[in-house]
Structure formats: C-alpha cells, structure tokens
C-alpha cells in the first residue's frame, strides 16, 4: 500500500510538492516559536557564561544575574581576593539605563567592566581601547542606526561606539559595555552627580581561581570568609536565569505553541480532506476491486504520515531560513531552531497531529460507493 501511495504521489509531483509545502509552512511556525523560546533561554544562559569567570560573587541573597539588582561593598573585592586560591576578582557592574535617540527610547543594560567580563563576540570594530568608548549590541546598533565611530549620549555623557557585539542581549534588552573610568566620569559629568554615593558601583565579582583549585570547594570557602556575599559557579547562575526565563515566558510561549499545533492540525486536516474528496472515485474503484474500507482508511492515515514526514525536513529548512532572516532583521532576538530536542519533539507531535488530522475524512472513505465508478 505504501508503494501505491508513493507511486500516486510521484505521478502528481506538483500537487505533492504543494501539499508538502503547505504542511511544512504550518510546522515551520511551530519550530519557529519553539526556536524563539529556546533563543530567549539561550540568551539568558549566554549572558552569564560569556563573562568568562570561574566563580561569580553576588550580594547575599541574589541568585540571578540580569534579573536582580546586586550591590556589593567596595571592600568585598579585597576580602574575596584574600581567600586562598582566588587568583583575581574582577569587578563588574550592571546599570539599567534608557537610551533615547530621536524620541525613540530603548532600555539597555550598561555592563561596566575592568579587565574581564567585557564583550565577547565582536562583529565590527574593536574592544574599548580609550576613554569615552562603548561597545554595543548589534540590535541597538540596528535599531538606532549606529555604527563604529557613531556618537551616543547616555544621561548626557557622550560615548563613541568602538565595536558592535553579536548576541549581547537578553530578556529583550540589549547590553552595552563601558569601563569603570567612564562610569565614574558618567556619574560626575552627567546629571546624576548629586546622588553619586547611592549609585551602584559594584554589582558582581568575577573570580579567576588559581590552578588546581576546585571551584565548588573554593566557592564554599569564599562564602564562609565573606558572609555578605553568595558565590556561584557560572553554570549555576546561568541555570537560575534559565529557570526564571521559563517561569516568565514559559506559560505564554506554551499557549502560542499550543495554538500553532492547532493550526498545524487544521492545515493537515484540510489537506487530507481535499486529497480524499478528490480521490473518491478512485476509492470507489478500489472498493469495487475488493479493498476493504479499513484498508482504505489505513491508506489515508499512511498518506498523511508520509506527507508530514516529507514536510518536516522542508519545515526545518524553512524555519532555519526564517530564523536567520529574523536574526538579521532584528538582532535582538535569537531563534534557535536547530536543537535536536526541539526537532525531535516537533517530529513526534507532527506524527500525532497528522494521524488525528487523517481521521477527519474517514467518514468520506467509509461512504465511498463502489457504484460511483460506473457513474458519469
């Protein structure tokens, strides 16, 4: 029967392609939404891991990186570096600001670094080499048409863009990197100077450990020696960010993905209905030849499965292409479609959807009358 179905499909290549493309489009939406959700989580993970620390020190009670305000004492750095096994503790400060250009406002997070924790992957320009320089995420550059050498003003303090970083964004918010010298100048020269003592100066410490030391053991030792801080492995902090991301975006993404599966079901149902109703005469002939209704129903289920199976690679290519276009057009978003678990989950769901959809025209098959073959 499978051979018969394949022959039938090959006999009408245009129609078969059209059907596969239609199913592929609906599946591609599912993959895109799954990829979008995964991208959100991946960005949260990446923002922590790209800081390149062995351990990350936070204010006591702070369990997240971007989502929490952490404020450490200035002397925390000295206290942490005094613990045996700590090679160096690099300061890092996160400061949320709103960048405004031509009345378009964009919230961004300033990542203030000293010599570690700066921008990772630069697509244009270079890192910070002098005063008043800033490295911005590609999404901010695209949104405000900024490029290397452009001037941008934050709270009245003027920076020159020295580099553009790739994937330096999370939670729909781009990052921008500056150095501590500029943070102090920003506080003094900008409108904020009056209340500088209350402004955040140190959020996290990025700890580089000495060779041969166990990170977990050292984390416990730092926590014991400096009671007003918490110490995390970067992977732990990244996991916390991902868990929070799932709490924040999970329910809404689940609803959207659920609707997109409904959409998929409808598309495959319409297709199977159309396919079966256009073949009622053939089914009548087959019944006249002795095929049972049950075997014709199996035909419908198998055809739906084959069409969906053929559509899935197309859907994957389509979703990858669409994701690539979205990332080029809107670099703030990351669409991670090509994750094995996403593809596998969609494949399994697609098989179920196609089987359910194939049941819709079963009543037509059951009613197919062998006598139709002699009509007209």
């Amino acid at each position, binding site marked *: 029967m499978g051979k018969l179905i394949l022959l039938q499909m090959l006999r009408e290549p245009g129609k078969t392609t059209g059907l596969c493309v*239609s199913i592929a*489009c*609906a599946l591609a*939406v599912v993959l*895109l939404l799954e990829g979008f959700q995964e991208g959100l989580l991946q960005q949260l993970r990446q923002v922590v891991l790209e800081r390149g620390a062995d351990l990350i020190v936070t*204010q*006591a*009670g*702070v*369990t*997240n990186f971007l*989502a*929490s*305000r952490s*404020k450490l004492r200035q002397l925390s750095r000295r206290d942490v570096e005094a613990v045996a096994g700590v090679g160096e503790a690099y300061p890092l400060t996160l400061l*949320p*600001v*709103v960048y405004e250009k031509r009345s378009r*406002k*964009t*919230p961004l997070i300033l990542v203030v670094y000293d010599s570690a924790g700066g921008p990772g992957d630069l697509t244009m320009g270079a890192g910070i080499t002098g005063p008043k320089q800033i490295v911005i995420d590609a999404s901010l550059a695209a949104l405000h048409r900024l490029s290397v050498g452009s001037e941008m003003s934050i*709270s*009245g303090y003027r920076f020159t863009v020295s580099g553009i970083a790739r994937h330096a964004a999370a939670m*729909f*918010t781009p990052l921008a990197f500056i150095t501590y010298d500029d943070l102090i100048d920003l506080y003094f020269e900008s*409108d*904020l100077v*009056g*209340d500088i*003592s*209350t*402004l*955040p100066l140190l959020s996290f410490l990025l700890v580089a450990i000495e060779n041969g030391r166990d990170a977990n053991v050292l984390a416990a030792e730092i926590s014991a020696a400096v009671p007003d801080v918490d110490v995390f492995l970067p992977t732990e902090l990244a996991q*916390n960010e991902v*868990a*929070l991301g799932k*709490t*924040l*975006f999970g*329910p*809404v993404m689940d*609803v*959207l993905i659920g*609707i997109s599966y*409904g*959409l998929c079901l*409808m*598309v495959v*149902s*319409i297709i199977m*209905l*159309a396919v079966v*109703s*256009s073949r009622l005469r053939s089914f009548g002939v087959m019944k006249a030849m002795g095929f049972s209704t049950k075997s014709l129903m199996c035909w419908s289920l198998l055809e739906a499965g084959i069409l969906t199976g053929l559509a899935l690679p197309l859907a994957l290519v389509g979703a990858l292409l669409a994701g690539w276009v*979205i990332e080029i*057009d*809107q670099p*703030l978003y990351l669409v991670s479609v090509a994750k094995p678990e996403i593809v596998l989950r969609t494949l399994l769901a697609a098989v179920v959807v196609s089987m359910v959809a194939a049941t*819709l025209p079963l009543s037509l098959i059951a009613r197919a009358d062998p006598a139709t073959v002699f009509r*007209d």
Partner: protein
Amino acid sequence: MWYWSLKSLFAEPLRLISGSLGVACAFLLVMVFQAVFEGESRQIVAYIQNTDADVWVMQDGVENMHMASSLLWNWKAPRIARIAGVTEVASILYMNTVMSAGGKRWFSYIVGVDENAFTGGAWEMTAGEAWPQQGEAIVPDVVAILSGLSIGDTVQVLDAELRIVGLSRGTFSMANSVTFINKKDLSRLMDAGEAVSYILVKGSDGISAQDLAARIKTGVDKVSALPKQQFIHRDREMALQMGSEIIRIMITIGTLLAVLIAGFTVYYQVIHKQRELALAKALGFRHRHIYAGVFLQAAAINALGYGLAVAGAYTLMPMIPLVAPQISLYVSVESLVRLGVIGILVTTLVVFVLARNVTRVDPVTVFQR
C-alpha cells in the same frame, strides 16, 4: 455566478468549516500574541496608573520607571512639600529583583513604602493588610496562588525573610509584578542610605499637574518631574517599542499562513468544481465573473475564519488566566479591527491572484468524461 459561488461553498460544509478553522487558527495565533503584548503593556503601567499622585519626581535624567533606576536624596521630599500647590508628598524606594516564594523564583519590582504614606501602596486587596510593617510583605495574589502560599507564610527578598500579611490584586505581570515591603527594610537591602527612588506628589485643586511639575523642577535642584499621565505615556511607549518588532513579525507570519490556508481551500474548491466552471464558461460567463466568484469564496472563507477567530479569542482569552493566571491579556477592538482589515484584504487578494488558473479552464471540459 455570485449565487453559484456561495451555493457551492456551502454545499460542502465540512470543507468550508475546516478551511475557515485553519484561517481562524492563523488569526487566533496573532490575536493571542497581540493580546499578551497589549495586556503586558497595560500591566506595566498599572502601578503608576493606580497611585493617587499628580506628579512623579525622580532622579534628574530619568523619565521612566520600567527598566530604569532612580535615586535621589530623601531631603528633597520635605522641600517639595513646601512648594506652593503641593498638598501631599510620599516617597518610595524601588528595585527589581528575583524573589523566592514557595520554592519558586519570581521576577518582581519591590516597592518600599512608608506605612503612613498617602499613596504608593497596593490599591486593591484580595486578602489581608495593605500596608506592610517592617519584616512584612504584600505579594500579588497570583504569586500566592502559583506558589501555594497564603497569609502568614514567608517570602525571601535578597537575604531577608518577610512574612506575607496581604495579597494584592492587579499587581502581577510577567514583566513587573509588584511586591510591597516596608521602606526601611528595602533601604537596608538596597544599602540606599538616605536615598529614595521616586517622590509622589499630590497637588491642590486648581493647579494643573503640568504647572506643578514645572514648579518642582524650578524649586528643587537636579530632579526630573513628570505629570502622572506623561509618566505613564513614556513607560507604555517604551514597553510598546520593545515588542513592536516581534509583533510585526508574528502578524506577517500569521497573515502568510492565513493566505496559505485560504488559498489552498479555495484552490481545491475550484479544482473540485472545474466541470461546473467549464459549464459556466460554455454558457458565456466572462473571466471577470469567474474571478468574482473565486474572490467571493476567498472573502467568505476569510471572513468566516476571522469571525471564528474573534469568537475564539473572546472565548479562549477569559479561560487562559484560569489555567495560567500569570498571563495578562487584553483584547483591544482597535487591534482586532486592524488585523481583520489587513488580514482579510491581503489574504483575499493573494488568493485572487493564486486562483488565476481558474480562467484557464477549458469550456470543452464539460463534454469530457
């Protein structure tokens, strides 16, 4: 031809319903996306909206609450209180952080309030107290439901264990649910010293918020003062800008899918009725009549699909919060109408183009077997 078009469409209700349901799902996907976005955008300003302040005063250079950080000396509050036209002043501290509740972590805006303040606290309560004393917290009722907590349980904000004394209503959103704690507690947690984040000002009758803001900016050094409505507008505008691109992408994808489904349904309708169309041509109907028929079918499928989507949206959306109370949804008639007009127009026109092969039907077909 119009009559034939509608008759043949309704002659096969199963195909019509499945085609329309497909279009409806595509529209519904976009509608839910829009509703989530609009719901969140509204919820983002819910706190500001529900305070009884005419003017918001903040750190100079800051003009937002969402995604912003503001700190100013607390001695500025009594100075503002002395300005002519000011009747009441309250100050709040605020920060965003991750709060642990019932073994789960929630992103929350923590607002520190004075217990005797004229405004700035929870505006509607599900249960318990509205104003927290030291060591106490008022959490959104949604957080309490999802975390399995109730009054008397504790939540952890940074390293502080706070006892829940009240559950507030209307304070939860994915982007900024609001937890109220005592200002002294938050000051210690933020190490804010003598600083506050925002000063909320109530003016006397007869003075406009605009004039009052101007007086405050002139009378107090290094502050930014905005009338409440302007402050709300700026926060909402920024929230909308943050998500406008993704909404545009989703509308494009949803519309393309609606085009695909409607096109497919009409195409098969036409193929199926090829003999009847050939008969129509043999009887002397012109191409424009046949196009009109196809156009009508596409429009009918799309309109029915859109209608089902609207009905689905109004049925589904009140149910979503019952299953997932953390999702804030808002269906605006304006966005529904806009989507309907764009969607139906685009899909119908594209289907119209796709169906051009109808005109190639040979009248001789009617005599063939």
